[in-house]
């Protein structure tokens, strides 16, 4: 390894730690919201260790905290997790893994590690390094932060008095916000919101969120046939 690639590797590592710290911070909000939604400390931590995908974790906690059933929570979480499978697919030819490393890499395949890997895809070795450094960094900070948030919130007697129920919607909005990159996507988002709102009085909690996928299917099919 020459000097310039050594320097680049340190830069990538520093960025990876930065991304880990930044996502870790919102792990605190996840831990706090999970516990105040009625999940135990252990359940909260297992979600961060095992499910390890922010939007899916917030979905499980949000849906069950609002009275939805386990099936609706699992289905919503899984549909949100489909993108991680696509990420794995898109970086598999860069990672070139075998055996147990493939298992570990799968668990670490999330928005951040994929983005950092793709951002360095001019150099395959650096792309791999970025994936591992970011994946490990986010995993470690996310789990520590979850524990801190969950522990802190376990002293809260009435989450509503602290406004924590109101923070769940804000958390989903903050996850959605950077994805609203064009007009069609914003329209799709509004339609999905209206459908969920309209269905809420008539179906079990959790179902309105699942039903919103119909909008993605309709618009996705339209987009594909327009091309």
């Amino acid at each position: 390894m020459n000097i310039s690639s050594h320097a680049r590797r340190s830069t990538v590592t520093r960025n990876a730690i930065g991304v880990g710290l930044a996502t870790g911070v919102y792990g605190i909000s996840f831990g706090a919201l999970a516990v105040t939604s009625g999940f135990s400390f252990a359940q909260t931590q297992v979600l961060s260790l095992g499910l390890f995908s922010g939007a899916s974790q917030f979905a499980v906690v949000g849906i069950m905290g609002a009275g939805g059933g386990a099936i609706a929570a699992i289905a919503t979480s899984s549909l949100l997790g489909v993108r991680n499978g696509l990420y794995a697919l898109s970086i598999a030819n860069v990672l070139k893994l075998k055996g147990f490393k493939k298992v570990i890499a799968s668990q670490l395949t999330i928005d951040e590690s994929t983005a950092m890997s793709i951002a360095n895809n001019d150099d395959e070795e650096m792309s791999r390094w970025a994936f591992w450094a970011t994946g490990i960094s986010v995993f470690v900070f996310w789990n520590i932060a979850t524990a801190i948030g969950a522990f802190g919130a376990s002293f809260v007697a009435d989450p509503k008095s602290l406004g924590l129920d109101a923070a769940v919607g804000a958390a989903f909005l903050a996850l959605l916000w950077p994805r609203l990159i064009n007009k069609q996507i914003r329209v799709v988002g509004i339609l999905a919101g209206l459908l969920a709102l309209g269905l809420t009085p008539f179906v079990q909690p959790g179902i309105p969120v699942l039903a919103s996928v119909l909008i993605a299917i309709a618009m996705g099919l339209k987009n594909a046939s327009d091309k």
Partner: protein
Amino acid sequence: MEARWIAVIASSVIAFILKFSGNIVPARYLEQPKIKSITALVPIVMLSALVVVQTFASGQILVIDARLVALLFAVILLIIRAPFIVVVFGAAALAAILRYFDLIN
């Protein structure tokens, strides 16, 4: 087993299977234009629906309460590019203040 544990474990297992299958499934199955354009929109629709449900739903009843005010505050915070944690706890803090002074439930 308690419903929450079932959800925690099953969603974790499925999440892993999805990630792992991306590593072993031949790319051509998932790279069809229809599948790609649908999956690109799935996070958008679900997160939008979650925002709405978490803001207005109380079980199957729709209500307007401090959560809506908090959400509008979150929009302002996002427009001025506040970090995630500021958006989340800023919204919570506003709801807490409104409730403390009995301005809205």
